[in-house]
Every structure is written in structure tokens, then in C-alpha cells.
């Protein structure tokens, strides 16, 4: 018996009926969510999956009433029988944090840049649960440890900008869990996490759920995660619920056409169907001569900052080593996957490659030219050839520029297209990344996470680069769009010999898409090799752990799956 069934007779703790959300935009009202209804019981996990931009995040925010001011909400949201939409802000405050906590999709902007994360996590404790500062700090350290942040005593005093993407996300989770809410709304809580950490976090959530009868709404693109974690699943598309039901049911016997596509395009499944390497073009014969990139003994340090007082006393915190003594070669036309623990220096490495971070030591050659000592003009040329998609697409878009402007900018500035051709090319690029043209005038704030992601990809592709450094480009995308984007990249790779450096936590994607993979841990390169070798015969413990932690689509007994503790124990 599932949890839901056990409590089926009882009133749902949260019940949403025909929720509509409209946004006032320059182009008039836009409906983001239409007639969504859902029930959530204590101890139950409700999964929401769906197309990127289908209204998942908006629904979640509507429940906590945290939509932007331009939103018009109608419908009914009952929390323990009270209509949330009718409450005033004061009562609402009483509900948030303790009754409903929220993990936002976009951790980096949801953390106050000026406050140490320990404090941010402890805030709820202090104000909702009356802890004093020291207790709150202690508990924050505990929570950080729970979410598997290493050295929590040190990290508790870090500022958000000193954390890696995954760390921020975990800090966010810790903050939401702090007050032991009854309902947790988790909007893609694990997108920036590597599989080992992800499974640990999922375990943690599962434990809490059982221990505290937590009700949870989990939004994710990772069907495997959803299937593992959830009792019931809601599938959304275009603002509507297209299907909902018991998790097992939906996964095994999808009714709606969209659900079927969704499940089918799961890369793992795809990979299995298409006999391994079929998806991946074999690397063309090694070109002789220089590698595309040659990285030698790269080390990057970030100077620590221990607050003003310690600066005064000369006891500033020690520098953080993000990358240590890393050497690597990347060939022409190769697709290199970089995987590794969250905080292991992947993003830092990527930023070094595009000259955003200067190495503390070591050198990088691009086609035989050292990039660190390039002249300004060469740098411009270099950047035209090497493009990066940032881990956090929302942050990487100018808040004042519409999607179309952002994509058109490089075209115009580099005279890649002229006059009317620009508009045409922008539409073409938007089409390539599956962005509806109607979003052209939207600003980043008015886009969903996945939509921002695609704008960023389109912008990078607009440059027609030779190298694409893609930092977690698939994490915010649902599997259908994910596979379309990957297909697009593959196409480019085949047609134009695009070299891709793909940083991803999704080992499935790396395995099916990349030629070679590099595994990083603690700033060091642990292992590198062709994916078949690496995934088939991992040489290092860490790689093995990673592989073991990949969540899988349950095919047999869903119940047993979801109740058996660590996923790592799976075969």
C-alpha cells in the first residue's frame, strides 16, 4: 500500500482546484497555468513533470503565493481547508516556512549575495523556531552536513558567490528544510547536483518524508528521480495537466501522448534502444598535429575573504583551490564530457577555458596558442570561436534584454548577419532550440528556467563557434527538449566538426553523447578516458561510486523501489 492510499480517506492537506495564472506582459495577458487541480496528502510525494515552460514553477509559486506582481491568480488553493488566496500577507507569513517551504529552481539568485549562507539557512530557525544565533548556526552546520556539503564548519561562513552551483542549490535545500515544514515544494532541487550527492539528497528527503510525514511536491525533469521518489505524478504541458495518477501507472502505462513521448525520450531508454554508440557519431580519425585544447598543470585559487575584522587582524581565510594541477587534452571535433562531484571545479575549469578566470598557475593552449597571453584582438577572435553556455542561464542573460535581443546581439555585433537577415536568423535559432517565437519579446524574468537555458544556448550557437563549452545545458530541460538539443548539437558536430565540452551531472547524457569523459573530484582530474571504457570498466573508486548512484527508471516493483533506502544499493 502506498502512503497515499493509506491516507486516501483523509482530507488532503493541500488541495488546488482549477488554478489559473495569467501574466501581464507587454503583449497583453499571457496564460501560464490553466485549470490545474491537484491534491496533496500528508506523507505523500507528488511529482510534477512536464515540458519546459509548461507552468510547473508557476504552479509551485502560486501555492506559496510568491508570484511576481504582474501575475493574476484565480482558482482555489486550500491548505488544511483554508483558502490561501484569501489570506492576507500576515497570515500567509505564518504559513510559509513552517507549513510550506519552497526550494526554488534557481538557487543562485535566490540567495542574498551579502549574507553568509549559514545565516541564511539559520534565519528561519531564529525567527520561526526562536533559536538564538549560536543554536541557529550549529543547526545550519548540521543541515549543511545533511545536504552533503563538505567542511560545513567552513562553508557555513561562505558567501553565495563563493559557492559552486550545486553548493548553492544544497544551501537552498538546507534553508527550506530548516524549519521542518509540513509541505515541501521542491522545484527541480537536484539539477545542479552530481548523482552521488543527488541520491544522498533524495535519501534525505525520503527519510524526512517518512520520519515527519512530510508532504512534498517534487518538480523534476529526471523521470528516474520522479519515478523513484513519487507516489503520484502529474504531467503538465502548455499550462495544463495532461495526465495524473499513481506513479507506477503513469510510468508503466502512460495514457497521454505527451507522457509517452516523455518516457520514450528518456536518454537512457533511448540509448538502450539504439544500441549504445549509435547515437554518437564516432570520432573522426584523429587529426594529426595539435590538439584543440591543451591544458597543462592548471591551478586556480580564489583568495579567501574572512570578513572585515579578520582582514584587519591579517587572518583572512585561506585561499580556496578550485582546480589543482589539472592537465588535459581535447581534440578537434571531440566531445568531452566532464563529470564530477558538485564543487569539484568543473565550472571553474570551463571559465578558464573562455578566459573568464585567470589561472593561478598552469597554461592553456588553443590550437597551439597560449590563451592567457593573447592580445586583445586575438581574444576577440578566440571568443568568436569558443563559446560557453553558463550553468545558470538566468543569471547569464541581461535582465533588460528580451530573448530575441539577447540572441541577436552577437549576430549584430560580429556582423554575422545583417539587416533583415538578423531577424530571420534569430527566429531560426529559436526554432533550433525549440523556443516558441511568442517568447521573443520576453525578458529573462518572464521566462521559465528551461526557456532561459535555451535562449542562452541559442545565443552561443548564434556565434557559430568551433568549440562549445556547455555547463549543465541539459539540467533545466525536460527530456524531450533535451534530446532535441542534443540532437541539434550532434548535428552540428557532424556537419561542422563542433568541439563540445559538456559538463553534466547526467551520466546518461555523457555516456550516450560524449566520446570521452573526464571525472573530477576535489579540483583534480581523477580519471579520463573513452566513455565506453570509463563507464564499462571504471578505474577509480570515485567513478564507480558515480556510476552506482545513477538513478534508474524502475521497471518492476515501483513500491519496493521507493521504499528501499539508498539508491546506491541498486544493482
Amino acid at each position: 500500500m502506498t502512503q497515499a492510499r493509506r491516507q486516501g480517506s483523509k482530507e488532503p492537506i493541500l488541495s488546488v482546484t482549477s488554478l489559473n495564472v495569467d501574466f501581464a506582459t507587454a503583449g497583453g495577458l499571457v496564460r501560464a497555468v490553466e485549470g490545474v487541480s491537484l491534491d496533496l496528502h500528508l506523507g505523500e510525494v507528488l511529482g510534477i513533470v512536464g515540458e519546459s515552460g509548461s507552468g510547473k514553477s508557476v504552479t509551485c509559486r502560486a501555492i506559496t503565493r510568491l508570484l511576481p506582481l504582474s501575475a493574476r491568480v484565480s482558482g482555489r488553493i486550500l491548505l488544511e481547508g483554508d483558502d490561501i488566496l484569501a489570506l492576507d500577507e500576515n497570515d500567509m507569513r505564518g504559513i510559509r516556512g513552517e507549513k510550506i517551504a519552497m526550494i526554488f529552481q534557481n538557487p543562485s539568485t535566490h540567495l542574498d549575495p551579502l549574507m553568509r549562507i549559514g545565516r541564511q539557512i539559520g534565519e528561519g530557525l531564529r525567527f520561526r523556531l526562536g533559536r538564538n544565533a549560536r543554536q541557529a548556526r550549529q543547526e545550519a552546520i548540521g543541515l549543511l552536513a545533511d545536504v552533503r556539503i563538505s567542511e560545513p564548519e567552513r562553508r557555513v561562513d561562505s558567501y553565495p558567490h563563493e559557492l559552486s552551483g550545486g553548493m548553492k542549490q544544497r544551501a537552498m535545500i538546507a534553508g527550506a528544510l530548516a524549519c521542518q515544514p509540513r509541505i515541501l515544494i521542491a522545484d527541480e532541487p537536484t539539477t545542479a547536483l552530481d548523482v552521488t550527492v543527488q541520491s544522498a539528497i533524495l535519501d534525505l528527503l525520503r527519510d524526512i518524508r517518512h520520519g515527519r510525514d512530510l508532504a512534498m511536491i517534487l518538480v523534476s525533469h529526471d523521470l528516474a528521480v520522479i519515478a523513484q521518489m513519487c507516489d503520484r505524478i502529474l504531467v503538465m504541458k502548455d499550462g495544463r495537466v495532461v495526465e495524473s495518477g499513481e506513479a507506477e501507472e503513469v510510468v508503466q502505462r502512460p495514457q497521454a501522448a505527451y507522457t509517452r513521448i516523455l518516457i520514450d525520450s528518456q536518454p537512457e531508454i533511448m540509448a538502450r534502444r539504439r544500441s549504445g554508440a549509435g547515437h554518437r557519431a564516432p570520432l573522426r580519425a584523429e587529426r594529426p598535429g595539435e590538439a584543440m585544447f591543451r591544458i597543462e598543470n592548471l591551478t586556480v585559487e580564489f583568495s579567501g575573504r574572512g570578513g572585515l575584522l579578520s582582514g584587519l587582524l591579517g587572518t583572512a581565510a585561506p585561499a580556496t583551490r578550485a582546480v589543482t594541477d589539472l592537465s588535459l587534452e581535447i581534440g578537434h571535433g571531440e566531445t568531452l564530457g566532464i563529470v564530477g562531484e558538485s564543487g569539484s571545479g568543473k565550472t571553474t575549469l570551463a571559465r578558464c577555458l573562455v578566459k573568464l578566470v585567470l589561472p593561478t598557475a598552469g597554461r592553456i593552449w588553443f590550437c597551439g596558442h597560449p590563451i592567457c597571453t593573447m592580445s586583445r584582438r586575438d581574444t576577440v577572435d578566440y571568443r568568436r570561436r569558443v563559446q560557453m553556455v553558463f550553468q545558470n542561464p538566468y543569471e547569464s542573460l541581461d535582465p533588460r534584454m528580451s530573448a530575441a535581443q539577447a540572441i541577436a546581439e552577437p549576430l549584430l555585433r560580429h556582423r554575422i548577419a545583417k539587416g533583415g537577415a538578423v531577424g530571420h536568423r534569430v527566429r531560426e535559432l529559436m526554432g533550433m532550440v525549440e523556443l516558441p517565437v511568442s517568447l521573443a519579446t520576453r525578458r529573462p524574468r518572464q521566462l521559465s528556467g528551461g526557456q532561459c537555458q535555451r535562449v542562452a544556448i541559442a545565443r552561443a550557437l548564434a556565434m557559430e563557434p568551433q568549440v562549445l563549452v556547455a555547463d549543465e545545458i541539459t539540467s533545466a530541460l525536460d527530456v524531450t527538449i533535451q534530446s532535441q538539443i542534443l540532437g541539434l548539437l550532434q548535428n552540428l558536430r557532424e556537419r561542422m566538426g563542433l568541439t563540445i565540452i559538456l559538463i553534466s551531472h547526467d551520466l546518461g547524457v555523457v555516456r550516450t553523447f560524449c566520446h570521452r569523459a573526464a571525472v573530477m573530484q576535489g579540483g583534480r582530474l581523477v580519471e579520463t578516458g573513452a566513455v565506453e571504457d570509463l563507464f564499462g570498466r571504471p578505474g577509480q573508486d570515485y567513478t564507480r561510486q558515480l556510476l552506482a548512484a545513477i538513478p534508474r527508471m524502475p521497471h518492476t516493483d515501483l513500491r519496493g523501489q521507493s521504499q528501499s533506502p539508498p539508491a546506491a544499493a541498486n544493482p
Partner: protein
Amino acid sequence: MEQVTGQGQASFARAPGLLLLGGAIVLAYILLAILAGSVSGYDPDIIDLNQLLQPPSALHWFGTDHLGRDVFSRVIHGARIDLYIGFAGVIAPLLIGTLVGLVSGFFGGPLDALMMRLVDLTVAFPFFVLVLAIVAALGPGVESYFIALACVGWVTYARIIRAEVLVIRSRDYIAAARTLGLHPLYILIRHVLPNAISPVAVYVMTDIALIIVFGASLGFLGMGSQPPTAEWGVMIADGQTYISSAWWICFFPGVAIVLLGLGFSFLGDGLASLLRAGR
């Protein structure tokens, strides 16, 4: 079915309101300035020694001053010179300051250090010496005032905008723009500036009002408008000895400045919320 809209109203829905109100006030002043001659009824500089210090009446709506001039027409004509002072006085500091702040904050390093010491220097520079030198060189008048302001006033803008830029330049969208191989100056203008400008937009509107008032305070150095020009600040200064006997000499120009200041204030806030809504 209920309508719930966050808290309060959408800020961008309000922006045009403020902008319109502010714009309307300022526009009204501009119109007055243009039409001053036909609105006022009296020549603002005509002296009538038989009509000294008359209280407001049907004949002289705002009364007459200590030289028997019609305060109403002086206030109206004052719009001309004061708007000119306000706008012309703010333009150079705004442009110079914004530029320096942007460049200095964005590029950082030795350039920044140099610029900021230049800012220190300018703040430290004895303004009155500057004013005297300029007046001596160019002769007294409002133009000298503008030049003195341009030499000094930019500092405030530079500091404000630099503070913003320092934060913005570490944002990812600037990094992204860099990786697009865009020219740093272009990034500065297109990405940094629009995101850093809003405190400046607010301050500039404040500054216009301050400039108008400050000009009058500098009268004792031969700065600002020359008599008998009808200028609000000077009118207030002239009227101060008559505060107890003829309040209207100071009062009406004062009201004129306050109203104009309000207009600019609305305009500034409206502009700022428009900029906010643009994100």
C-alpha cells in the same frame, strides 16, 4: 473566483502614472517659460517706486517686491532662467560623472585608483577658488556657474554609478557578454549602463532642484544670474530681509521651486520604476 495580485500593484503599471505627473508638471513649467511674456501681464523688470511692497491683490496677484516689480510676472519669467540653469547645469556633470564612474568601476585596477583619486581631488578642490577664477576669467553670469558645476558636480555621479558597476561587473551576464567577444565599451554601454543607471536617474532629478537653489546661495561670489534677472533663488535671497513685512516676495518663488522640484522628483521616480520594470 478571486483575483489576487501579489502585494500592492505591479510597479510598472504605476510607472507611467508618476512619469506622466512629473512630466506634466515639468512641461507646464516649460510652457510657462516659453509663454512667459504673454501670461504674466507685466514686464518683470519694470520698476514702480510708487508700488513698493504691495501685498497680493487683483492688480498684482503675487504682490510687488521692494522695487515695486510685479512678483507674479517675475516668478513666471523666472521659470525661463531657472529651467535653463537646472538643465544646463546638470548636463555636463551627469555625462562626465556617468562616464567616469562606468569606466572606472568596470575596468578597475590602476585606472580606477587613478580616477577615484581624481574624484577625491575634485571633492577637495576649494570650490570658491574655482568659482572666483572662472568668474574672473569669463565674467559673472550663469555660464560661469555651469562651468564651475561641470568641474565639480560630476563627482557625485561618478561615485554613485561606480558603486553599482562594481557589483554588476561580477554578474554572470557580464561574463556572458565577454565570452561573446563583445567589445568592452559596448558591454559597458549596452549591459552595464542600463543596469546601473537608475540611482543616477533619481539623483539627477534631485540635482536639478539643488542646482537651482545653490546658484542663489552663491550670489555673494558674483555667481549665478546677474541682476535684475528674475530668478527664483535670487528673488528669495532678495526677499529675505522682508520676511516679516512682505512674506510674498520669498513665498511665491519658493513655491515655484518646490513645485518644480516635485515635478522632477516624480519624473525621477517614474523613470526609476520604468527602469525597474524593464528587467
